[in-house]
């Protein structure tokens, strides 16, 4: 697969040809996303210390662990993922459509708006202004700004895709184009309906849809879209099966939105909704299997690349963890399993596995691949990048397994009517391991950050030749010669 309809020209005259991709914009978004990830991790580590009785600043109102926890989760969604995914989309979409962003200045402005939104988000959450929608704690007064930032981003890439017209487009754009609408609808549904219009259990059903749709209809399609773009590019061979790609996309599109209520099983939400959520959750596991098979068959005969290419190693590690997540999901969603593991640390482990282990890992792979292209400088140290990979992976897998076991233990202690304190006391060793695992992950990120910093001074390799596209005559008034 090669990007279509682009012209590679060295040293193009500035007045007739402009770069297809705004490298500065992509670089800024990826960097901002990474900085928010570091901030979020720091917040998460802090909160984990509370569980060990060593939270250092619990006497400061604005740094109360309950508030910092919301900063941790919200920055993952609206700081790290939104920024990084925007950067990735701004890189991919112009290449696949052959069209520049229709509103490049708006996109540049939107970058700063997004950072302003994140700063306000932190300030308001620490100020105690949260909204009681899980993973949508973005305060009510900030909701319009979050929606605006997301809509501007999606309009910019959406317009590129929409201009393609009736021609079939590549898999990546299926996911990206659907995500534009899904994200906006999901955010508005989750942040406004339970708050102002739908009380009680039905509102709970919608809040459940929101939590899950934010994963399934915003992060997941952008993540898989990026994988369909980068994996064939790095392997230099097409995706194994177009049919499997189709099944994967349409299966996800149909089943994913139906699952949200599985966050509140055994609740007062009508049982038919709960049964439906269970069935569609198991169904999506089958769909996911087709996608995974498709990618691993693409790799056939090229397994050695996982050793030699760090980005590919990140991608395929993420995919294995994605399969693990979904397999786990299809088991934990069963009503009988829910009796034990709901409300426990099992779920926390599951969330870290999917958000960091899958989408975080994919974005790291993309970062390793793109950063030298964006800055024109090679990585200062390959070794540090390898440390980043191994520390992140070891930390995450440890955290996941640790919380998995802790969750099962807590669930049985609760069911067996042990005193509540017993479940807390028994959990402390697991929480200690969780903190150590978190520190391991953080150490990995420090390696990457240090490497990025040192790469600034690295000897520039031959400047990257960007793809150029003729200036659009209708927009600029210039006539290309």
């Amino acid at each position: 697969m090669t990007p279509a309809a682009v012209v590679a020209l060295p040293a193009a005259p500035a007045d007739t040809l402009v770069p297809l991709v705004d490298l500065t914009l992509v670089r800024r978004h990826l960097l901002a996303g990474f900085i928010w990830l570091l901030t979020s991790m720091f917040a998460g580590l802090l909160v984990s210390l509370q569980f060990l009785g060593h939270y250092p600043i619990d006497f400061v109102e604005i740094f109360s662990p309950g508030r910092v926890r919301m900063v941790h989760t919200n920055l993952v969604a609206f700081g790290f993922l939104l920024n990084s995914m925007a950067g990735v989309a701004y890189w991919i979409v112009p290449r696949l459509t052959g069209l520049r962003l229709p509103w490049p200045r708006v996109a540049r402005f939107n970058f700063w708006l997004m950072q302003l939104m994140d700063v306000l988000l932190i300030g308001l959450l620490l100020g105690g202004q949260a909204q009681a929608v899980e993973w949508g704690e973005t305060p009510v007064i900030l909701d319009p700004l979050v929606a605006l930032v997301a809509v501007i981003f999606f309009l910019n890439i959406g317009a590129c895709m929409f201009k393609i017209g009736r021609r079939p487009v590549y898999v990546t754009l299926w996911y990206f184009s659907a995500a534009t609408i899904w994200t906006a609808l999901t955010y508005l549904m989750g942040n406004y309906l339970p708050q102002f219009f739908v009380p009680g259990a039905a509102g709970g059903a919608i809040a459940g849809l929101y939590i899950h749709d934010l994963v399934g209809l915003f992060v997941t399609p952008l993540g898989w879209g990026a994988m369909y773009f980068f994996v064939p590019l790095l392997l230099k061979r097409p995706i194994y099966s177009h049919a499997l790609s189709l099944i994967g996309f349409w299966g996800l599109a149909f089943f994913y939105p139906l699952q949200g209520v599985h966050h509140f099983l055994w609740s007062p939400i009508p049982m038919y909704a709960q049964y439906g959520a269970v069935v569609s959750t198991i169904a999506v596991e089958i769909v996911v299997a087709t996608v995974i098979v498709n990618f691993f068959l693409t790799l056939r005969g090229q397994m050695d690349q996982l050793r030699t290419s760090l980005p590919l190693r990140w991608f395929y590690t993420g995919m294995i963890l994605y399969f693990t997540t979904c397999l786990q999901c299809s088991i934990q969603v069963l009503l009988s399993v829910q009796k034990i593991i709901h409300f426990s640390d099992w779920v926390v482990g599951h969330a870290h596995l999917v958000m960091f282990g899958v989408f975080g890992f994919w974005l790291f792979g993309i970062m390793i691949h793109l950063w030298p292209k964006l800055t024109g400088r090679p990585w200062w140290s390959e070794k540090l990048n390898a440390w980043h990979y191994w520390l992140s992976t070891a930390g995450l897998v440890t955290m996941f397994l640790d919380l998995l076991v802790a969750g099962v233990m807590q669930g049985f202690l609760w069911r067996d009517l042990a005193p509540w304190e017993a479940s807390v006391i028994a959990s402390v060793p697991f929480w200690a391991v969780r903190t150590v695992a978190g520190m391991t992950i953080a150490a990995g990120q420090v390696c990457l950050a240090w490497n990025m910093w040192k790469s600034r001074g690295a000897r520039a390799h031959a400047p990257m030749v960007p793809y150029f596209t003729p200036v659009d005559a209708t927009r600029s008034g210039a006539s290309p010669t």
Partner: protein
Amino acid sequence: MERVRAILLLAGVFFFALSFALMGVLPMVTLSDLPTQTLAEVAPVVQESFVDLQERWPAAFDKAFGEVSLESYHAALRRGREIYIGEGCWHCHSQFVRPVSNEGLRFGPVSIAEEYQNEMQMPVLFGTRRVGPDLTREGGKRPNDWHAAHFFDPPSVVPSSVMPRYPWLFEPVVGGVLPTPPNRDGLSLIAYVQWLGKWPRPDVEAPVAESP
């Protein structure tokens, strides 16, 4: 199936709308015969615990609410709920008792949909994680001064507790004299927690039966 417009329409709009109809609107319709209650309906009388707050800390109470009245009680409940949300209490304490895993024995009567159909559950405070116990039936289980001490320094009453302290819910310490009385936010949060589960239940004749 591979064209942007088809994807936008079928996947983006139609499948989303379908899921919203099946998983969002249908439960709404199912529950629509339950009237949405106001705070006045779910808190029709002033709880004894609120009177106790006034008797225990008269100066602080007077400064915060003035008199004990249904009006000041409702104001306290609303503010208490805001604190409960803003401090993220609902991330470690759930508000629904499930019909499984002996939760009826541990916490009290199993939650039913009627209990959530009111403005105090907008958005609903189900919660998804229990580091601490469920709070649906917390009201009246423990005295006010237990809650005050617990909010000020949880390990002082539950040694193994990992709950954070909330000293800003109390009057500032002057001259090192402890304990200081709860301030307006502290009193409100205690009133809110003491109200949980004390609302009228349509399936149970008042008062709510205590489980072993």
